[in-house]
């Protein structure tokens, strides 16, 4: 069954997301690596490559981690791709395995983000008693954030959702809040989520407004966490135990795209075209269609973002995301469960870990190991992540036939 150019996840792990005041990034990353290696039944000695991501740390996270978990001299790639950093680390390892340079490799993403506050906004204010001086690509005499639109993430993604509403109608504050209500409800079954309390629509709508129409619970939760995965090719997998072969999850598509030029994409980031491109490529590579998916973990960094990705991932017909949501499809008992982990709004979003943690969630289900939140009979799932700038990672994962 498995071929040399087939790619499999042999082991994968995510730490509890939340506040870890007594653990640093290396502790968290090492915990994820040890978890993934144990899950895979292999050791650092088996790894031919490591790729690691950590956006807000001091750099060279791969080597920092090697110094704690094993310095074997293998090539170490430190990757950075905004919120798609974890998926990029995984994609890097998959490319090395697929190229035949190594037969096994390790990808890890880790972030310490608890209490980080608002991301994206800023810029230097002009010093007093100074004369105007032009700076940057716009030749601005002061910070443009807040004076010419916003660079804050909640505001950017609010506009991305509102733009969909302008184009197709039907998307309002209450609809976006209902999407958040769904994900907070899903999170009650996820013990690793940073927040796992259900919230009513009224609570969500009456919470602190961050960037209309996103209130605080409609924004991804800044928290600490890590996730890691061991990748192996099909040839090597055949030499391992039947139990390892049974639990291995097939990576039937691994895609990374960047944003192609579109009118307005340098005015408001276009997270749609690169996601749609990645989805097309992923479905073609995997030989499956959206109707074959049993669950989807998509990048709901804000409630306003989840809506547009129903459409971008072609879970509904073009322009039909509002109807898709209102049909009940993306609830865990619906026909296309979306973000049964609770999504980034409740599970949390430790940036570099996110693009591997969403794959962990899908693996749990297709292995039949998701416990109370298991989607019964799940065989195929899709994990999607967006890093603004932009990068989109999509992985389609399938249960082993062994």
């Amino acid at each position, binding site marked *: 069954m498995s071929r040399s150019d087939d790619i499999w996840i042999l082991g994968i792990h995510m730490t509890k997301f939340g506040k870890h005041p007594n653990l640093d990034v290396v502790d968290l990353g090492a915990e994820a690596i040890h978890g993934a290696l144990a899950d895979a039944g292999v050791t650092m000695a088996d790894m031919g490559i490591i790729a690691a991501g950590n956006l807000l740390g001091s750099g060279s996270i791969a080597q920092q981690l090697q110094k704690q978990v094993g310095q074997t001299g293998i090539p170490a790639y430190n990757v950075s791709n905004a919120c798609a950093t974890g998926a990029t680390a995984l994609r890097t390892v998959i490319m090395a395995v697929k190229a035949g340079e190594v037969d096994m490799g390790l990808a890890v993403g880790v972030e310490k983000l608890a209490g980080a506050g608002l991301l994206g906004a800023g810029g230097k204010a002009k010093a007093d008693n100074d*004369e*105007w001086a032009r700076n940057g690509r716009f030749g601005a005499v002061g910070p443009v954030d*807040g004076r010419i639109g916003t660079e804050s993430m909640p505001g*950017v993604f609010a506009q991305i959702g509102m733009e969909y509403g302008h184009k197709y109608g039907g998307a309002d504050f209450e609809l976006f809040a209902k999407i958040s209500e769904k994900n907070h409800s899903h999170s009650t079954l996820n013990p690793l989520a940073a927040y796992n309390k259900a919230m009513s629509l009224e609570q969500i709508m009456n919470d602190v*407004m961050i960037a209309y129409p996103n209130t605080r619970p409609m924004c991804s939760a800044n928290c600490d966490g890590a996730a890691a995965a061991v990748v192996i090719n099909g040839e090597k997998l055949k030499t391992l135990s039947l139990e390892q072969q049974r639990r291995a999850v097939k990576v039937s598509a691994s895609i990374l795209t960047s944003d192609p*030029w579109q009118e307005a994409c340098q005015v408001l980031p276009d997270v749609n075209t690169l996601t749609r491109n990645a989805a097309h490529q992923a479905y073609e590579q995997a030989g499956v269609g959206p109707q074959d998916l049993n669950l989807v973990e998509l990048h709901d960094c804000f409630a306003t973002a989840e809506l547009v990705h129903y459409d971008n991932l072609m879970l509904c017909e073009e322009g039909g995301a509002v109807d898709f949501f209102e049909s009940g499809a993306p609830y865990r008992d619906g026909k296309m469960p979306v973000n049964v982990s609770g999504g980034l709004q409740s599970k949390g979003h430790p940036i570099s870990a996110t693009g591997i943690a969403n794959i962990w969630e899908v693996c749990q289900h297709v292995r039949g190991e998701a416990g109370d939140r298991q989607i019964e009979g799940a065989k195929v799932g899709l994990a999607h992540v967006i890093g603004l700038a932009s990068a989109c990672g999509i992985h389609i994962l399938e249960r082993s036939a062994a």
Partner: protein
Amino acid sequence: MSTATQIPFVEYLKLEPTPHLVANECTSCGARFFDRRNACAGCFNTEFTPVDIPTEGVVRSFSIITFAAPGVDVPFVAAVIDCGGTSVRANIINCPPDPEHVSLGMSVRLATTVVGIDSAGVEAVNYGFEPA
């Protein structure tokens, strides 16, 4: 007119003869950009020509920002304005920042506002869009 010397807040804003925005338009594919360019992101051409952007448009998207970086007055309305087919990033100004007064598809026009004065007495003038 004010007697104070004024300069535009960004280089793509021109104050004379009346305030308007000027984009760098790719001479090959027509893509428009507001920043300093090395090449066209759409077709890689390196020649650009300045084009005036219509000062009237409609709100294509917006968000009302209540949390922002230090030094930014909140709440304010961040928006994307469709100015005759060219998208422009701007704040909505001269309008209460609430969903009762700002709506998708609303007609707006360019307006200017003085954002500060430096030690030489020069005023920096920024743009926004106000209800038309």
